[in-house]
């Protein structure tokens, strides 16, 4: 196996939650009895990749709700991973947490265990919104969590928020943002609510019991969010992500968007080595079974063609403010016509050999790659 093109990132999927949030389409279970077996299987899976992935410079423990892991279990996993792989000195180690799990003790413990960055799932500060979303914390609890984490010494906090919620007003949303900024998080992810198939929230919207903002309003939310955070000194570096400085962007997530390699461990986790993508089965039981049988718990593996890689470069690159090199849009027939057109339409800009999306372009980012495919 040859060397990976760039330093890879490691992702660990913790598939356990206290309960399912009404909007969430990720794989998770609320039966925690399988937790210790899952932890063992995870390290067994790590063994399978020891030869191919030696060193990582980011680790992201996501889920699910990683903060529900008993502290001992988390310690075992982190030390197990450190035994098997090496991590860069200044590696970014992120833990996703829910406010209800943040206590003085847990916060100190996480610090001790080498977590350098905590991403807090606040989502909203309006208790009615939190209830609609099926969250298990109140707005007060969320703000307390931020304070507790700061006191424990975390200097890199990220807050997850959602807009475009049923009955959410633009002014209410901007107030939420303002309240969060009082804690000066280093990083903010502001996601538009996405309706995932098969979730209770989607069913409610389809049944007409909840209403989402229309296209115009959603655009306004997006633009005002960007304006607001930029005015407070944040960099809008990805469609839904803001950082106080270039150094504080999510280095792990940047690997996804820059088409870098990453290894995902755990049920339903995805991996990419620069050429191939694979995903694990979405079942804790099957995952464990496969690994105790000594097999990789694969759901699928695909080898990408150059064309597919190129398409991915565009679909990912147009999500970032840094854009893609102009060469990435240059191979197809009459590419310059398409580019000039998109520039004339105000969707893209050409800057020093790089094609970058404008804010108008970001709003249609999913369709931008199609401009450059014959």
């Amino acid at each position, binding site marked *: 196996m040859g060397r990976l093109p760039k330093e890879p990132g490691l992702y660990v999927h913790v598939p356990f939650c206290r309960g399912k949030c009404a909007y969430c389409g990720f794989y998770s279970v609320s039966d925690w009895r399988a937790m210790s077996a899952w932890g063992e299987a995870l390290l067994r899976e790590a063994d399978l990749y020891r030869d191919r992935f030696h060193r990582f410079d980011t680790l992201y423990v996501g889920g699910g709700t990683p903060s529900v892991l008993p502290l001992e279990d988390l310690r075992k996993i982190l030390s197990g991973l450190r035994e098997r792989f090496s991590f860069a000195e200044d590696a970014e180690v992120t833990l996703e947490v829910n406010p209800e799990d943040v206590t003085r003790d847990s916060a100190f413990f996480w610090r001790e265990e080498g977590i350098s960055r905590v991403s807090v799932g606040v989502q909203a500060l309006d208790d009615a919104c939190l209830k609609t979303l099926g969250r298990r914390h109140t707005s007060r609890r969320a703000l307390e969590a931020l304070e507790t984490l700061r006191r424990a010494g975390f200097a890199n906090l990220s807050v997850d928020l959602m807009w475009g919620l049923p009955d959410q007003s633009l002014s209410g949303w901007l107030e939420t943002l303002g309240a969060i900024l009082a804690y000066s998080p280093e990083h903010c992810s502001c996601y*538009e609510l996405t309706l995932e198939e098969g979730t209770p929230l989607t069913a409610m919207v389809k049944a007409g019991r909840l209403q989402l903002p229309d296209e115009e309003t*959603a655009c306004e939310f997006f633009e005002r969010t960007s304006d607001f955070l930029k005015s407070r000194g944040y960099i809008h570096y990805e469609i839904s992500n803001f950082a106080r400085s270039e150094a504080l962007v999510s280095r792990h997530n940047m690997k996804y968007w820059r088409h870098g390699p990453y290894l995902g461990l755990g049920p339903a986790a995805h991996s*990419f080595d620069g050429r191939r993508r694979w995903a694990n089965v979405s079942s804790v039981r099957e995952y464990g079974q496969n690994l105790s049988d000594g097999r990789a718990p694969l759901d699928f593996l695909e080898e990408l063609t150059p064309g597919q890689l190129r398409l991915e470069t565009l679909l990912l690159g147009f999500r970032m403010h840094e854009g893609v090199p102009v060469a990435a849009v240059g191979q197809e027939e009459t590419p310059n016509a398409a580019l000039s057109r998109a520039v004339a339409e105000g*969707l893209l800009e050409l800057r020093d050999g790089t094609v970058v999306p404008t804010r108008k372009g970001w709003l249609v980012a999913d369709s931008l790659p199609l401009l450059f495919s014959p």
Partner: protein
Amino acid sequence: MKHIRNFSIIAHIDHGKSTLADRLIQAAGLVDAREFRDQILDTLDLERERGITIKSNTVTLPYTAPDGRRYALNLIDTPGHVDFSYEVSRALASCEGVLLLVDASQGVEAQTLANLYAAMEHDLVVVPVINKIDLPSADVDRVKEEIENELALDADHAVLCSAKEGIGIDDVFQAVVERIPPPRGDSEAPLAALVFDAQYDSFRGAVVACRVFDGRIRTGDRIRMLSNGAVYKVEEVGVFRLKREPRPVLEAGEVGYIIAGIKTVSDVRIGDTITLDDRPTARPLPGFRAVKPVVFSSIYPVSSDDYASLQDALEKYKLNDAALVYQKDSSAALGQGFRCGFLGLLHLEIVQERLEREYDQSIIMTIPSVQYRFTLESGETVTVENPQYYPDPASIKATEEPYIRASILCPERFMGAVMKLCTERRGENPRFSVPGPGRVEIVFDMPLAEVIYDFYDRLKTVTQGYGSFDYEMIGYRPSDLVKLDILVNGEKVDALSLIVHRDRARPWAVQVCDRLKEEIPRHQFKIAIQGAVGGKIIARSTISPFRKDVTAKCYGGDITRKRKLLEKQKKGKKRMKMVGSVSIPQSAFVAVLKTDKE
């Protein structure tokens, strides 16, 4: 010859022509009940579905009369649409009589009348047959009265039957034998056989259906086609028994087929006279004329990769349809394709549907056009049926378009609606006659261009299905023509250009702009659709851009899903036609041709 009868069945649509034909075939013992499929003679799927006969079939029925005499009854099937009226006339010319089928509850209808006139033109004996007498709504006495009054036929001896139930079938046979005269002719005279149909057999080439008037024809004879002097050696002659049944000879009075190494049906001309090369007849049979296409449209493959496949399909299709003509054509919007000429709009639809169904082609057809005539300043006259070849407007001195004499038969109460329709369609010089109580025949001189698009559908709508329509070409008349172009974001979509009367340009342009607005999906940018004559914009519509198409999250697991969605969209886009940077779906080209129901 005394024991031969040549006849056709003529009827208004749905009066049971095919059912009766099938029943006669079954009663004659050509098929047993187990093999019996409904409507055997209508062999094309399309015919079954639409209940119309497109390609005619012929069958020789053996019949033994009650007195023990054995007859050969040649049932010559006729196509049932105005586009094929010439083929109908040749089939009727091969008969001595017809069964005029009338529905026992519907009574005499417009087409009944038109068919009767056609039969009378050929001096045929007409035997009225009242069908569907088993229906509860049957009113035989009223229908007999109608036959007497409206058709001026003797209804006392009308045959009563129900083809569906098999009632009165023997009466039909007897009427054919007793009332339709046997053919006359001289088997010793030089051969004169009338070609009334030709079908393609992939092993044998063209199978020519003909009626022998004089002389005889055998395997090995050298035959000559009088229209073009082509000579062929006869490989096989025989009669149609659902399947072909070879015979040593076909004689005067008989109907059958000839296989003579003729490669395609395009080498055979309907209405031609076949004679012997070494002993030709002095007189060709009357009524021959070359069939000329009157409606033109271009066919393009949806995906330009399929051009070769379309070419292949057209070549194969053409083997069995001599009336279709085509040549290469190309469009900036749609790529390589074919310009095709058709006998009429139904013919066009048949070709389109058969290419799609039987030859598995995905095609786009352009707006049908007629053949226009331009006199240029130089004195030269050019005919143009493809808007791409519209002459430089500055060089045009006079323009002319083909006119038809349109005759419409309908119940009197629809007269106003039909008048309105015809006037809207630039009909001139209206004439009326009342062929029977409650019915009118309305005759208009009309531009052919006005009927090729959706006239027949509209007529059916305004007459609630009762109107029937027939037309004949009456030559060119001066007209005020312009070329209408459709532009999408300033780029001309050549496949949507049209030569049109100046007064019709704007309504058409407005309709096309509206249709395209509905069919072209929103893009990231604004799309302007315009209709233009010369440099002047006469209609426009705008498609506003979509503002938002973005997924909030795209992390490790979302990438594959996102890429697959894009790949699917890319495929969809490939099937679209690019005009500048606008993707136009195939459905848009189809939609501009759809009938406006309002």
